[in-house]
């Protein structure tokens, strides 16, 4: 039981982080707080994927002694020695998408503030209903 907790609590940490972001997105009235909540949510997902790439005792996926054989001799690579590179690559893409959505969302928030002079969601809805 104790060993199970030790080997799985990293996933639970990320789920907790995701719940913080999800709560901020749903409950908070301030638009900037919602955007930051979305950012926390995405960070939790990225951390989750990165944690699946870990191998115990493995190093970063940069091959050692790669340039000694001048490329021609493909020597056998010990797969257990290097961390899984694929989640790293995919999360690099996800980070780009995260930054892009964050930037556009903050720009839209600035536009909303210029129009309504508030970032509180209920006040904006009231102002929209008034016309």
């Amino acid at each position: 039981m104790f060993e199970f907790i030790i080997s799985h609590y990293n996933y639970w940490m990320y789920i907790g982080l995701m719940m913080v972001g999800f709560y901020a997105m749903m409950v908070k009235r301030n638009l900037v707080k919602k955007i930051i909540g979305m950012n926390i949510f995405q960070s939790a997902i990225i951390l989750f994927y990165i944690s699946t790439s870990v191998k115990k005792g493995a190093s970063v996926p940069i091959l050692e002694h790669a340039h000694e054989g001048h490329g021609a001799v493909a020597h056998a690579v010990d797969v257990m020695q290097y961390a899984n590179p694929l989640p790293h690559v995919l999360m690099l893409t996800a980070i780009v998408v995260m930054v892009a959505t964050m930037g556009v969302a903050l720009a839209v928030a600035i536009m909303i503030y210029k129009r309504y002079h508030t970032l509180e969601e209920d006040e904006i809805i009231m102002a929209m209903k008034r016309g």
Partner: protein
Amino acid sequence: MKILSLMTVFLVGAALIYGTLDMPKWGDPQSPASTHVSPYYLNHSLEDTATPNVVTSVLADYRGYDTFGETVVIFTAGMACILLLKAGRKRRGNGHV
């Protein structure tokens, strides 16, 4: 409303924690994520791309078109930001004049 949202959050969290009970152990070298596809990239990336950094070779060689699309995404986002912020400035300037 707040209670309902909190309940939704904890329901989703509980469902996800239930899902992690079947997940492989942290740092397990025999986990499915690191036994099926990734050994191919670790074994072949040097002879295919002559790049010791496997992350770079997957990003820029095997998935080159994906990275190109990624730059299109970030270019579009940057253009959207610039256009939004510029439009806001112009409208306010016109309003004052």
